[in-house]
């Protein structure tokens, strides 16, 4: 029964990973850009949430109303200024630019908040849980995170599939030049995609900040987990990212059940196995442009 419990907890943890990875997956899917500042941005959002809770006393969930739009604006400006320029250079430029950005953000946070562990206080919700069977109990907050993660992936998928702008994003992803010939301004589409992606990072960052202790260097491991979820699921596939997150979560929790100090390592091993035997991921996009 403890194995069943580990699987349930792993799936629920996977929801957080999927939430963290959604923006990374979207940015890669739309413009083939690997955003190495993704994790650092999530931690920026976590600090933003923490400061808002501590200074104003508003409830943690209410901070999302500020953090998400602010982060989306940050994403938009980032794309319009740095990243669109970087994308016009050779392939290495966006990687170097986002890596540099991650370093700058991390050091700024160290300067502002020191290296001490922090977390966002949600009061009694942090310890609340629901008993499903006598042996399995799930935390209320992790469950909310999971539901939000699934909802975000589904909403994003729907947005891309059904809306005019979503269609323009897919077209631009397929063939940027042909999209321009349809009257699509790719720089605008890219800015919109990054605004959505970084807004979602904001959402994920606040959830992360409630769920675990964090410090300025926590962005690195966040980026790695998000990246592993994207790769396991298959690049450019949003549903794949959800599955990737769940598989990673299950591997880590079940791994920790079997080898108490090596849960994260088992997650990495699953990731490496996927990369070795199914480099396109388990649920790749049907079409490669």
């Amino acid at each position, binding site marked *: 029964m403890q194995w069943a419990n580990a699987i349930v907890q792993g799936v629920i943890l996977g929801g957080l990973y999927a939430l963290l990875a959604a923006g990374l997956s979207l940015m890669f899917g739309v413009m083939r850009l690997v955003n190495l500042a993704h994790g650092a941005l999530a931690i920026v959002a976590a600090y933003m949430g923490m400061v808002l809770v501590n200074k104003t006393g508003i409830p943690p969930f209410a901070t999302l109303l500020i953090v998400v739009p602010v982060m989306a604006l940050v994403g938009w400006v980032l794309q319009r200024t740095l990243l669109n320029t970087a994308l016009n250079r050779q392939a290495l430029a966006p990687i170097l630019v986002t890596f540099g950005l991650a370093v700058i953000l991390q050091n700024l946070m160290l300067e502002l908040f020191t290296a001490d562990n922090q977390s966002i206080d949600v009061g009694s919700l942090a310890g609340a849980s629901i008993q499903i069977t006598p042996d399995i109990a799930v935390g209320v907050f992790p469950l909310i995170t999971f539901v939000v993660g699934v909802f975000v992936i589904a909403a994003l998928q729907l947005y891309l599939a059904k809306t005019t702008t979503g269609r*323009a994003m897919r077209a631009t992803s397929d*063939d940027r030049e*042909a999209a321009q*010939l349809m009257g699509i301004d*790719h720089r605008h589409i890219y800015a919109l995609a990054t605004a959505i992606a970084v807004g979602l990072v904001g959402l994920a960052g606040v959830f992360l900040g409630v769920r675990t202790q964090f410090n300025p260097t926590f962005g690195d491991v966040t980026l790695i987990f998000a990246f592993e979820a994207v790769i396991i699921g298959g690049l450019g596939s949003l549903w794949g990212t959800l599955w990737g997150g769940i598989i990673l979560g299950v591997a880590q929790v079940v791994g920790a059940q079997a080898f108490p100090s090596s849960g994260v390592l088992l997650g990495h091993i699953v990731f490496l196995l996927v990369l070795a035997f199914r480099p396109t991921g388990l649920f790749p996009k049907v*079409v490669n442009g």
Partner: protein
Amino acid sequence: MPLLEVENIDVFYGDVQAIFGLSLTIEEGQTLAVIGANGAGKSTLLKSIAGLCSPATGEIRFNGERINDVPPHRRVPLGIALTPEGRRIFPSLTLEENLLVGAHSKRSGHWNLATLYDTFPLLADRKNRLGTNASGGEQQAAAIARALMSNPRILLLDEVSLGLAPVVVEQIYSALPAIVEQGTTVLVVEQDVNQAMKVSDRVQCLLDGRTVLEGKPSELSRERIASAFFGI
């Protein structure tokens, strides 16, 4: 005033010059065919008009306005639509979605999904097929229909016949009268000289990035075209 004037343009790809002092004029409602062998500069000419290439010297005027510095996505709202060489259908979108993306600029006019399915019946049957799974003919028809979704004043067609069976080429060209009937100006680039002569009011033949012959199809003999085409 001509709808489109290309005046004395030079176009380069890096250090390589593809077009040398080329000029061209089209009146509204006319169909002009630009013919020439591989590497004559035909596609480069169309890309320059659509904005994907920018001429180093010379001027491109649309409806009397200089458009050299207008980016490609702003030329579509003006009424310029290019069906590019190789069709460039969005592979992960269905054919119908491809058409809908063509309407991005929201120019209104005769062409919409219904009228286009009427003109290209083969698309109506295949509208839910993914671009990547469509046949060459379906892709070409979709590429033309997609360009028409922007209800352009001028339609630029690049190598429509390339890689298609003659019967399919016939089928696609049979839609051209319906397009011209709407008052649309058409600039066709073709290697298939017979097809080009059949559909156009005027023919301009390029060789190595320069115009070597132009005139009405009825006034040009096969011999003159052949010698201009091959530069002999």
